[in-house]
C-alpha cells in the first residue's frame, strides 16, 4: 500500500526515513499451557531455553558499547543462574508446562526482590526480561526486545520501556514510532535527548511489516509507508534548509526586536550536564536531582552529594543552573524516606510535601548544593517542586536562605500556585512553570495515561490560561517566570509562551536551535498577538492551527 499515510502525535521534531524494525512485545506463558506429557523433555526444554538466552545476551554484551555492556552481562548472569533453573525445574516436577514453569520461577524471585525494595526492586525488570526471553524461546516466537540493528532503522514498538532502550544501539536509530505512549512518555523524552523524530499513538504501528520503509514526520505526527522518492526528496531538502537556517544563529535567545528570552537546558545527571555545558545555551533551567537519591539505600552524605553537584555545576561557570530539590513521592519512592503507599501518588505527599514531612532531607541537599556552589563559578538557583500555597513558598525560601544560597524559586505546576502567583512568588525570587504536571493537574488527566494524550496537550487553552495567570502574577510581583516543561521546546508554543510573558525557556538541548530560530523571526508584539489568538481558541487543535497560520512563513515552512 504505497504512500499510505497514518497520523499519530508528533512528540519529537524533525523528519527521517528508514526501514522499520519492530520491537517484539514481552511474551507471557499461555494460560492454557498443558501439563507436560514427558517431564524430562519439559525440564530439558527449560534448561535449553535459559542457556540459549544466556548465550544470546553474552553475545550481545560482547558487541555492545561500554554503557550497555554491564547491563547485558548482568542479565546474562541471571539467565544462567542455578537458583532460577532449580526453581523452574521444581515447577516442571510439579506438573507445570515449561513456559508456565519459567514464569512461576521468575515470579518467585521477583516477589522476593520487590519485598526488598529500592535497588533490589529495580532488578525485577531484568529478571522479567530474562523470563520473557526464555518463554519466547520455549514457545518458538520472536525474542522480545530490540533486535540487533545493522543499519539506520526506524524503531517501532507498542511502547518502549526504559529497560528496552538501554541496549538500543543509538547510532542506528533514526526515528521512533509507538502505538501507545503519550507526550511525556519515555519514548518522547528519549527521542528528544537523541535529537531524532518520534511519533506516538500511531494506529496499528505494530502491524507495519518489518523492513517496510517509512517516512516519519515528528512535527506533524505523520508516518508514510513506502514513501515515494518525491516525498523523501522534499523532506531531505527541508532538513537541509532548516540546518542551514539554524547554523546561522547563535547566542542568547532574542525576539526579532531584541527582547531577551533565555534558552536553557533540562538535565538529569552529570552526563547531561557535560553535554549541555558544551552546547550553545545560556545555562540549565531544570536540573532534576532525583537520580542520586532514588538509587540510594540511605541518604547520601552531604559530601557525597556535594561531589555530584560540583560535577554538574563545573561546566557552567558564569551561567545559571537552576536545581530542583528532591521531587520524590509514592510513585518515585525513596528507600530511606518512604512515607508508605498512597492511593493516588500524583496527589499525595510528593515533592515539597515529602520534604516538609522529612525536612532533614531538604536541609542536607541544600547544604550540599551550597558547598558545591562555593567551589564552582556557576550562578546557582534552587527551586522547590509541587508548591501550592504561599506558606509553602515561604517555608522553602527560609530554608534556602538559611543554607546561604542566594536565590530561591518555586515550580509552578499546581494550578493553585499559578492562580495565586502574585502572592506565592512574593516570597521567592522566581517561578518556573512545569507544564507537564501543570497540564496533568489542570486537565485532571494522568500523565502516564497514553489514551489521555489529547487532554495533556500543552496547547489546551485552559492550560495556556493558567500559564497566563502565572505570568501576570510574576509581572505584578516583579519576579521572572520561566517554563521548564517539554512545551518550551515546541518552537510555536515557545512563541506563545514568550507572548504570555515568560522570561526563559528550558528544554532538551537538541530543541534549542529550532526555538532560537522561531524567536528570532518574530517580534515581541507578534508573539503577544499569537498568544492572544491561542488563548481565544476553543480547542487545543485550533490554537495550534491559528498560531501556525499566524507565524512567519519562513518558520512554518521549515519547522
Amino acid at each position, binding site marked *: 500500500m504505497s504512500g499510505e499515510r497514518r497520523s499519530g502525535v508528533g512528540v519529537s521534531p524533525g523528519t527521517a526515513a528508514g526501514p522499520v524494525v519492530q520491537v517484539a512485545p514481552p511474551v507471557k506463558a499461555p494460560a492454557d499451557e498443558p501439563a507436560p506429557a514427558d517431564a524430562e523433555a519439559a525440564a530439558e526444554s527449560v534448561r535449553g531455553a535459559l542457556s540459549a538466552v544466556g548465550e544470546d545476551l553474552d553475545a550481545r554484551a560482547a558487541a555492545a558499547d561500554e554503557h550497555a555492556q554491564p547491563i547485558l552481562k548482568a542479565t546474562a*548472569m541471571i539467565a544462567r543462574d542455578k537458583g532460577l533453573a532449580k526453581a523452574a525445574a521444581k515447577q516442571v516436577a510439579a506438573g507445570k508446562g515449561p513456559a508456565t514453569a519459567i514464569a512461576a520461577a521468575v515470579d518467585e524471585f521477583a516477589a522476593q526482590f520487590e519485598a526488598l525494595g529500592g535497588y533490589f526492586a529495580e532488578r525485577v525488570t531484568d*529478571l522479567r526480561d530474562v523470563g520473557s526471553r526464555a518463554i519466547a524461546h520455549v514457545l518458538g516466537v520472536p525474542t522480545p526486545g530490540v533486535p540487533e540493528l545493522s543499519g539506520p532503522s526506524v524503531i517501532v514498538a507498542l511502547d518502549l520501556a526504559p529497560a528496552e532502550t538501554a541496549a538500543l544501539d543509538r547510532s542506528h536509530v533514526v526515528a521512533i514510532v509507538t502505538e501507545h505512549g503519550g507526550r511525556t512518555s519515555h519514548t518522547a523524552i528519549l527521542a528528544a535527548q537523541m535529537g531524532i523524530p518520534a511519533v506516538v499513538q500511531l494506529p496499528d504501528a505494530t502491524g507495519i511489516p518489518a523492513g517496510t520503509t517509512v517516512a516519519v514526520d515528528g512535527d506533524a505526527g505523520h508516518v508514510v509507508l513506502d514513501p515515494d522518492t518525491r516525498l523523501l526528496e522534499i523532506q531531505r531538502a527541508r532538513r537541509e534548509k532548516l540546518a542551514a537556517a539554524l547554523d546561522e544563529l547563535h547566542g542568547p535567545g532574542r525576539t526579532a526586536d531584541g527582547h531577551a528570552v533565555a534558552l536553557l537546558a533540562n538535565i538529569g545527571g552529570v552526563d547531561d550536564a557535560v553535554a549541555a555545558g558544551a552546547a550553545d545555551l545560556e545555562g540549565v533551567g531544570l536540573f532534576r536531582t532525583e537520580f542520586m537519591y532514588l538509587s540510594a539505600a540511605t541518604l547520601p552524605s552531604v559530601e557525597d552529594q556535594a561531589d555530584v553537584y560540583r560535577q554538574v555545576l563545573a561546566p557552567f561557570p558564569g551561567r545559571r543552573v537552576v536545581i530542583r530539590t528532591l521531587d520524590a513521592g509514592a510513585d518515585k519512592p525513596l528507600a530511606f524516606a518512604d512515607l508508605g503507599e498512597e492511593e493516588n501518588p500524583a496527589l499525595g505527599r510528593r515533592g515539597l510535601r515529602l520534604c516538609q514531612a522529612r525536612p532533614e532531607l531538604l536541609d542536607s541537599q541544600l547544604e550540599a548544593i551550597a558547598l558545591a556552589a562555593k567551589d564552582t563559578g556557576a550562578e546557582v538557583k534552587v527551586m522547590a517542586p509541587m508548591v501550592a500555597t504561599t506558606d509553602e513558598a515561604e517555608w522553602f525560601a527560609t530554608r534556602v536562605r538559611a543554607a546561604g544560597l542566594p536565590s530561591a524559586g518555586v515550580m509552578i505546576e499546581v494550578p493553585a500556585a499559578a492562580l495565586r502567583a502574585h502572592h506565592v512568588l512574593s516570597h521567592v525570587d522566581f517561578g518556573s512553570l512545569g507544564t507537564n504536571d501543570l497540564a496533568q493537574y489542570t486537565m485532571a488527566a494522568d500523565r502516564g495515561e497514553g489514551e489521555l494524550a489529547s487532554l495533556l496537550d500543552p496547547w489546551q487553552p485552559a492550560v495556556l490560561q493558567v500559564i497566563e495567570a502565572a505570568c501576570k502574577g510574576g509581572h505584578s510581583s516583579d519576579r521572572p517566570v520561566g517554563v521548564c516543561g517539554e512545551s518550551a521546546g515546541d518552537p510555536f508554543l515557545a512563541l506563545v509562551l514568550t507572548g504570555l510573558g515568560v522570561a526563559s525557556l528550558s528544554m532538551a538541548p537538541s530543541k534549542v536551535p529550532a526555538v532560537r530560530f522561531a524567536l528570532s523571526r518574530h517580534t515581541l508584539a507578534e508573539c503577544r498577538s499569537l498568544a492572544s489568538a491561542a488563548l481565544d481558541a476553543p480547542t487545543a487543535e485550533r490554537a495550534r492551527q491559528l498560531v501556525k497560520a499566524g507565524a512567519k512563513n519562513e518558520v512554518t515552512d521549515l519547522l
Partner: protein
Amino acid sequence: MPQRTATIGSSVGLHARPAALFVEAAQGTGLDVEIGRPGEDPVDATSILGVMALGAKHGEEVVLTAEGDGADAALAGLVDLLNRDLDAEE
C-alpha cells in the same frame, strides 16, 4: 566445615555490580559455597538471584561456608572481597 564471617563493605549493599563480582568469584572457586545471615538459612553463593534475594545491606554481617579442597583459602579470598567497597572500585 570451614566458616568465616565478613562485613559487607559495598555502600550499595550486596547488590548489582558487587553481587555479580562476588558470585563470579564464588563460582571461580569451584566449591560449594554458601552465604547467609548468622543463624539463618544460607543461600547458594554461586546463584546471583539467591545472593541478591539475600538483600545484605552495607555494614551487615554475613557468614560464609565452603566445603572441599582449599576451602579455607577460598573463603579468605571471598571474605576479603566482601569487606571492600566493590561499587566504588573501577
